[in-house]
């Protein structure tokens, strides 16, 4: 009993309750048809939101003003360069992945360099760098849809024991992120900086090093998400990352992490990602149009943040 009450005090539990209700509502509407298929689709699509969401979560945890707006551009660029290099050759998958990781590393480094050298807010630094990254992607992509190697397509579209591979991958990443955030020194440092950067610095936390690693981590995760998303959806497209700007921030907030930083949780990102996908598919099965669906998504984000309340304001 005590454990149950404890569970309800977790900030992320509500997103999972919401997931369950959205799933049940859809199943009831369809008369019990396609419940498993829906769950599988939800796991697949949520997986990509989870990967970018984890990166954004670490950045947001750093405290007020920290946010990465370059995630969509990084996804597009890493996918484009990697897929172009592999040129549908299955033997080059590993170097291709390394190229994607390299893009993420470079973007993270550039972002933190701008923040530090130009002393500008992260939002402006990542905004200006995203302009450059997106341009590079447009230039190298040339509006073509570059096909992924067959091995990767097979990997991303198949599943093990009914669980999609990408979901397994992102589950492993989430577990790792949980341990990094909650159990490792690095994670504790990130939280400490988010709660009070001055105090953290005085306490001897290597603030610059931690912030640098966090922005790199976010860039790398965005690159990984881009790499697998392009493999899954049959190619790298220029607008493939667009929706993930809003999604990456929304899943962190809906998942119960504090937008003001210093207090985050990983399970909530899974809950929120599943929830966002299920709401869309629920509204789809109800037969509402794209317009109503967008409005509902927006209102849900606002309702969740209003109910969860803001403890500290964040710019």
């Amino acid at each position, binding site marked *: 009993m005590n454990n149950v009450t404890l569970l309800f005090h977790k900030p992320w539990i509500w997103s999972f309750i919401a997931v369950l209700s959205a799933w049940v509502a859809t199943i009831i509407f369809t008369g019990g048809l396609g419940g498993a298929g829906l769950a599988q689709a939800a796991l697949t699509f949520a997986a990509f939101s989870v990967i970018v969401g984890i990166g954004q979560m670490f950045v947001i945890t750093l405290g007020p003003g920290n946010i990465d707006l370059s995630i969509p551009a990084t996804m597009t660029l890493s996918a484009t360069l990697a897929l172009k290099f592999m040129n549908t050759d299955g033997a080059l998958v590993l170097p291709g992945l390394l190229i994607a990781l390299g893009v993420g590393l470079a973007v993270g480094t550039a972002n933190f360099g701008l923040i530090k050298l130009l002393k*500008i807010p992260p*939002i402006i630094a990542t905004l200006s760098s995203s*302009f*450059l990254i*997106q341009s590079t992607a447009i230039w190298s992509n040339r509006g073509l849809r570059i096909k992924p190697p067959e091995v990767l397509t097979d990997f991303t579209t198949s599943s093990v024991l009914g669980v999609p591979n990408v979901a397994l991958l992102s589950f492993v990443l989430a577990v790792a992120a949980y341990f990094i955030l909650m159990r490792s020194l690095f994670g504790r440092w990130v939280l400490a900086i988010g709660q009070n950067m001055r105090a953290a610095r005085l306490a001897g936390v290597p603030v610059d090093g931690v912030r640098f690693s966090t922005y790199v981590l976010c860039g790398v995760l965005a690159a990984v998400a881009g790499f697998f998303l392009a493999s899954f959806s049959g190619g790298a497209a220029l607008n493939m990352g667009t929706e993930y700007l809003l999604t990456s921030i929304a899943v962190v907030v809906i998942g119960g992490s504090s*937008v003001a930083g210093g207090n985050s949780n990983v399970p909530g990102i899974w809950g929120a990602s599943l929830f966002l996908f299920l709401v869309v598919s629920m509204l789809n099965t109800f037969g509402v149009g*794209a317009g109503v669906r967008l409005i509902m998504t*927006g209102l849900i984000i606002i309702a969740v943040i209003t109910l969860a*309340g803001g403890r500290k304001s964040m*710019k």
Partner: protein
Amino acid sequence: MTSDRLRQLLPAFSLAVLLISVFYIQPRTMSYLGLNLLFNLAVPIALATIAQMLIIAVNDLDLSMGAFVSFVACVAATYLRDTPLLGVLILAGAIGVYALVGILIYVRNLPAIVVTLGMSFVWGGLAVLILPSPGGAAPDWARWLMKTKPPGIPMAIVASILIAGIAHFLVMRSSFGVVIRGVGGNERSVERAGWSILWVRAAAYASAGFFAVLAGILLVGLTTAADANIALRYTLLSIAGVILGGGEFTGGRVSPIGAVIGALTLTLAGSFLSFLRISSDWQIGAQGAILIIVLALRVLLNRSKQGAGD
């Protein structure tokens, strides 16, 4: 000349450098028609930048600007043309919603970026409902406004000067502007001086909504038709414009004239590339690069200021 003064002149200086380079590469732009073509598209961007600036002045950030301007464009190309009264009512209601968003953010102490992010879905959804596929037609008066040819100075320049002038008066000269910037600088002292922060914030958001509405209408006047995604890039462009124009993110330190100049600079950056015969692929990149260069110059100026013993 002090570095402070230099810093204030930086936006105008960057615009001048770009403009002179364009004139040098393509002297034919140095004409009535040429200037109008160069700066035509900057007019709605300038208005959206002023709107964003009003939000930044109270230490918030509006991530729904692009979606909202698109929504207004869709309303302007349909209701405002066919049933003007209904159109005006819808737009007035939208400005009211902006004020409500400002109130909600203040009362519940919410992060503005998340709430406006949510609103961007709402505006986007409404725009899709109004105009599921590109279409509609601009009201004749809006088209006339953007196509008119005043003697001597092109419309785009006249409009930019007008926007800068009105915004400068509103934000820098009127008591309303002082209070808004005061909220950004020190909210408590404004409150102690007897102002209701709630109403000041609501007013700041409402006036931002008003300028964004103008941006949407004039954009349709230029393009003559609308679609639900017509202005999505305005969110990032408007933020970049404010910063380019010398605005700071916090503390209510904004500059309306600078913001308009920032919008003009960003627009010109795009054309500059095409004059250099560089592929338009790099247009967004050029805007990012200019943003970084100007910010770097600002850091250098600040450093020399500190070096001079302040």
